[in-house]
């Protein structure tokens, strides 16, 4: 085997791609030829260096750059956008706004007596809506006001009755009205009665005043 033949078969020999006879001839030549051994060593050295070489990583924006130069910025499909939307929709501000909008709409629909199961074109007229919402809103406010006055009247009545019950029992032993020694009981009694009468008059006027307030509340309910 000549040097030229050997130099042409170095790669095949290194990769084990030669048949047995040819490989034996190569080995025989290599054993006796220092120059060809050196060539084989060069090839094997290059192969070792190439096989240990790692891939080089391109910059992460290379794909985006090429996409921009070819198809332009691709619009993502709605499925790809969904996570982004969800993230936006679940923000507290958005949740609060939507809840309030739903509540307001429900309130308007309720007050305007719109039955969503049987919607008529006439009922969807905004003027009708406003009129109904207005009258119903007023009615609601008036009812709330009446309830408030009723409750207030009951509490006030209860407190007045409690005061009236407490006054007779506290009068005799009261340190503010000590009994004079040696008589004069008729004077004391008359003054007590007078005070009681005065107190009762004050209470009655208070009751009258409160009744008037209650009546005023009732009147406001009348359309």
């Amino acid at each position, binding site marked *: 085997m000549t040097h030229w033949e050997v130099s042409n078969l170095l790669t095949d020999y290194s990769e084990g791609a030669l048949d047995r006879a040819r490989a034996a001839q190569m080995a025989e030549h290599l054993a006796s030829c220092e120059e060809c051994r*050196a060539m084989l060593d060069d090839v094997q050295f*290059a192969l070792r260096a*190439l096989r240990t*070489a790692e891939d*080089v990583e*391109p910059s992460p924006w290379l794909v985006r750059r*090429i996409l921009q130069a070819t198809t332009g910025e691709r619009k993502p499909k709605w499925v790809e956008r969904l996570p982004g939307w969800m993230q936006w929709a679940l923000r507290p501000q958005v949740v609060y706004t939507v809840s309030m909008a739903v509540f307001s709409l429900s309130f308007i629909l309720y007050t305007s007596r719109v039955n969503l199961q049987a919607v008529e074109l006439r009922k969807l007229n905004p003027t009708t809506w406003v009129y109904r919402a207005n009258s119903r809103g007023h009615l609601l406010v008036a009812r709330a006001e009446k309830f408030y006055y009723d409750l207030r009247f009951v509490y006030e009545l209860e407190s007045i009755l409690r005061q009236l019950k407490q006054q007779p029992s506290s009068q005799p032993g009261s340190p503010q009205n000590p009994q004079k020694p040696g008589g004069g009981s008729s004077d004391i009694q008359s003054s007590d009665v007078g005070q009681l009468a005065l107190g009762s008059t004050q209470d009655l006027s208070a009751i009258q005043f409160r009744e008037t307030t209650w009546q005023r509340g009732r009147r406001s309910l009348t359309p």
Partner: protein
Amino acid sequence: MAEDQELVKRCLAGDDAAWETLLTFHHRKIYNLCYRFTGSGTEAEDLTQEVFIKVFQTLRTFDPLQGQFSTWLNRVARNHLVDHYRKVSRDRATASLDDEEEGLHPRAAPSAEPATQVEDRERKELLQAALARLSPDMREVVILRDLQDLDYAEIAQVLGVPEGTVKSRINRGRLELGRILKRMLKKERLE
């Protein structure tokens, strides 16, 4: 691969997502090919972009009956790289190296020491510098065979030369690369 062909079909039908998938799948290989040719990350990125623009524009010319998409892509990339080198006139002949450096023979006795040194030291830079010193003909076959893992038939198809020529170039390319690497290591050791 059948997947590539399906993606190409979808690309031709105007499916941008298919193009993105095709690009994501192949850009790393092409970038590495460009990097091994140029030795510069920025230049390799520019060339990769240019290659894919060309691929995008000429995708209709890809014929699945004539070979795999990856082979066609490599051919487009290789042709672009050759054009690029012609344009910038950066081709270097191996012969010029031989004139500059001392004689190649006789060789020293085989030793495992240099290989270990290549692994231990800045392997990437050294290999890249050695590849840059190879002639373009030899460089491209060595890169396609040993770094891109293409077989002889594929390389022959990409380069448009007979398989025998490919084998011969690989043989000479590896031999030359080994010599350059050893010489560079020796020089560095002396320094």
